[in-house]
């Protein structure tokens, strides 16, 4: 798959790294991966906090019909990614949201229907276009080869815009997430903030899917944030940890994928899941230790 795969990994790490960065497409892949990891981490952190994983996953997979439709129409795939993700975000935002209870089950039915229908449209576009089976696998499972300089620039601009908007709505969004009723009483437009956030989530998903493919975007959105929120309850610290985890996962994934014949998506999801398992294990052992010491203190006192 990767052109350098035949040369394999040597024991000299410095030499391997030099070989890695000697290729322009790898440099671009790392640039794109860094942008993607930061954006997905920041927006995914709010997604996990807001328990909107299902909406996030749906926004992630709609990039597949978006790209397939764009190829069918002969316009740029990047435009297709963003158009599909933003349109879907607006459709999901139309449905009133309230976690728990009957309204939640209706919301999830809507999201599930939207997701399946969007993917069915993707299947239709592929069938109508006929015979881009190889790029179909790339659309679904991603490729880090051939990311152009122009694409990196686009990614960077969209990421800066998305992070800028996130910085502006960050505080009200956090407030509206943690306590929507009080936020509403204090004059925060909860509906508005939620809609803007869904659009941001769509943009993040569209960005990430250009590298990891439509099906594996979700890993970068959910795994770093879920791991960080396992480790600490302090917002600023877990936000920082999310970004660090995201960067580490993407860089490692890209580095290993370069020397391997297997797809980058597999390595990114596996490292992400490894971090998640470690975080969950760390929290479980800390909880047990804390409970033990409290018990000893009670016994001694």
């Amino acid at each position, binding site marked *: 798959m990767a052109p350098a795969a035949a040369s394999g990994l040597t024991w000299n790490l410095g030499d391997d790294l030099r070989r890695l960065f000697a290729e322009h497409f790898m440099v671009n892949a790392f640039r794109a991966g860094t942008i993607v990891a930061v954006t997905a981490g920041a927006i995914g952190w709010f997604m*996990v906090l807001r*328990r909107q*994983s*299902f909406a*996030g*996953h749906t926004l992630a997979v709609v990039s597949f019909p978006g790209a397939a439709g764009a190829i069918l129409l002969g316009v740029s795939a990047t435009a297709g990614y963003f158009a599909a993700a933003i349109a879907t975000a607006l459709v999901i935002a139309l449905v009133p949201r*309230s*976690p*728990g*209870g*009957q*309204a*939640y*089950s*209706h919301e*999830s*039915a*809507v*999201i*599930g*229907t939207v*997701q*399946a*229908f969007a*993917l*069915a*449209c993707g*299947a*239709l576009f592929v*069938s*109508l276009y006929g015979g881009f*089976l*190889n790029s*179909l*696998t790339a659309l*679904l*499972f991603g490729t880090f080869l051939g990311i152009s300089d122009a694409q990196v620039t686009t990614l960077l601009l969209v990421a800066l815009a998305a992070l800028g908007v996130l910085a502006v709505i960050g505080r009200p969004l956090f407030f509206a997430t943690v306590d*929507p*009723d009080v936020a509403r009483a204090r004059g925060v437009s909860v509906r508005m903030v939620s809609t803007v956030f869904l659009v941001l989530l769509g943009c993040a998903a569209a960005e990430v899917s250009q590298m990891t*493919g439509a*099906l*594996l975007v*979700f*890993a970068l959105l*959910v*795994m770093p944030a*879920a791991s960080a*929120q396992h480790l600490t309850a302090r917002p600023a610290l877990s936000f920082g940890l999310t970004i660090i985890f995201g960067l580490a996962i993407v860089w490692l994934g890209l580095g290993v994928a370069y020397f391997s*014949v*297997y*797809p980058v*998506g*597999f*390595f*990114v*999801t*596996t490292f*992400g*899941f490894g971090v*998640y398992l470690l975080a969950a294990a760390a929290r479980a052992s800390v909880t047990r230790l804390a409970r033990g010491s409290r018990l000893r203190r009670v016994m001694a006192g």
Partner: protein
Amino acid sequence: MTLLAANPLVGLAHMAEHPFLRYAFLAGTAIALASGLVGYFVVLRGQVFTGDALSHVAFTGALAALAAGANLLLGLYGSCVAVALAMAALGSRGRADDTVIGSVFAWVLGLGALFLTVYTTSSGGTNATSGVNVLFGSIFGLSSSQAITDAVISLGVAVTLAGIGRPLLFASIDQAVAGARGIPVRGLGFVFLALVGTTAAAATQAVGALLLLGLLAAPAGTAQRLTARPFRAMWLSAGIAVASVWVGLSIAYAAPSVPPSFGILAVATGCYLVAFLATAARHRLRPASGARPCVLPLTEPAAGTT
């Protein structure tokens, strides 16, 4: 495939002549019946995301079986039921957390990408289409034995679900009271998720791993919008699912460039949209009426529980 005949009756007669269409209708009907019934409870219990996760497990399971050279059905059903039971065990009271589900299935999908690569490269690229078939379904490609296996398993799911329907409904709507009345709530959660896993595996063959969520969610969501009565909604959901499959298959037969899974999903989504608009309009026309059409009277959440 021939184009649609001018006379619809002649067209139908043409359709019945093709064995592949007979198998597609046989398996499709049974799978839709099971999906509609199971989907009703999936939506009622707020477990659509679990269904989503299982659909991705189906993809990985099928490709793992293919890559290992084992029986595809074995991998499909085995992985789906095993993961469904694991999710039931992980979640408190038989319902797993969103983030846990998300992290696990994102990784499972990554594994699927690995198996896809292993499978396609080991065969020198001749197997490239099988991955696509698992993702998007190949109901017109079912053999007679596959169709009969799927139909029997799906009918089994439907019968089991109809059998446990009443206690499951009770446990889904009010877990605490159901538990107090001696209903094995946790056990029912396990059985139910195993049924969802089985349905997901069967439906993967009909509409594909990526699209089976629509067959679970859309008919059930439509039925719940149209009626608040549980059992009526349950059978309505099954009816809509079966009708979607029949109409979708006919569309795909008439227009060969339309994949059958798209036809099925388009009809199911259309039903949902119509129901959504109809109930929204009714709601707007009669804002004073106390009962919202979409809320079960038993589970009206207390105000301000968000």
